[in-house]
């Protein structure tokens, strides 16, 4: 479960649920995100036929932004390995900054990317 400074992370292969949501400004970004990055790397060795990864962040600091990119790059590897991968980037429809953040990530990584505006 997320806290006021760390996001909620769901990595549930059985139910096809992959999601990072909430706020991200952990005290130690590496300690928080490295296990997630490692998990995705492991998952890539025996992935599902299709992987839909949801990002539902309302805030992340710059220290987290690099770690989020690392996760996206792992998913890019999966896509380059010929697997079906989709990133869904959810943002509040009035949150221009979060929308732009999604667009920037979509520019950087080569992986199917869908922007989802939430009312």
């Amino acid at each position, binding site marked *: 479960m997320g806290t*006021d*400074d760390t996001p909620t992370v769901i990595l549930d292969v059985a139910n096809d649920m992959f999601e990072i949501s909430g706020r991200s*400004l952990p*005290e130690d*970004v*590496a300690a928080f995100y490295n296990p997630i990055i490692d998990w995705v790397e492991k998952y890539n060795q025996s992935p599902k036929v299709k992987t839909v990864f949801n990002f539902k962040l309302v*805030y992340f*600091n*710059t*220290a987290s*932004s*690099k770690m989020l*990119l690392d996760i996206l790059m792992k998913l890019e590897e999966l896509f380059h390995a010929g697997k079906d991968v989709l990133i869904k980037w959810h943002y509040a429809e*009035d*949150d221009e*900054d979060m929308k*732009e953040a999604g667009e*920037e990530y979509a*520019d*950087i990584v080569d992986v199917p990317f869908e922007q989802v505006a939430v009312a």
Partner: protein
Amino acid sequence: MMGTNKKDVKGYLEFVYEFYQSMKEHEISLVYEGEITHQITKAFTSLTESNMAKEEESNLVQKKVFHVMVECLQNISKHADDFGSNDFMFSGRGIFLVAKGKDDYSVTTGNAVDNSKIPDLKNLLEQVNSLDKDELTELYKKQIKEGRLSDKGGAGLGFIDIKRKTGRNLNYHFLPINEDTSFFLLTSTISRVA
């Protein structure tokens, strides 16, 4: 400072009143001096958030102030151990102020830095200040992509983020403390009118 001498006490209390008046005059709503930790960062951001919510500040302005506060405070807390010293000036301590004016919020930090770091800091700040919105976006993307960050996050990305979120230049000033160190002051403003 707090002697038993009545005159001393009176002088001190008069100073406190002047300090209070000075804060009012500069519209300072939060001032802190001391160690800047993750807990302090969380406490100040949540305090400021609830004040802004109470004053019915727009969500957009609240978000921007939050962003700037976090990046400014983390600049100090993350570089706390760079000096490898327990000296009070070098242990992630500093001052932190939030002021609320009619048109803007301002977030100001001050902390001791080793003089050897000043040229890099100045270059970074001047670079960020010289770039427009699109150029900043490109620089931001380049920096996170190349991973040119320490595991501490890197001040560069924080400065870029502040300018992108506020659309305004970062003002800074270095004042000498002694021959090896200076006091680094940094202030950012956030418009209250969207």
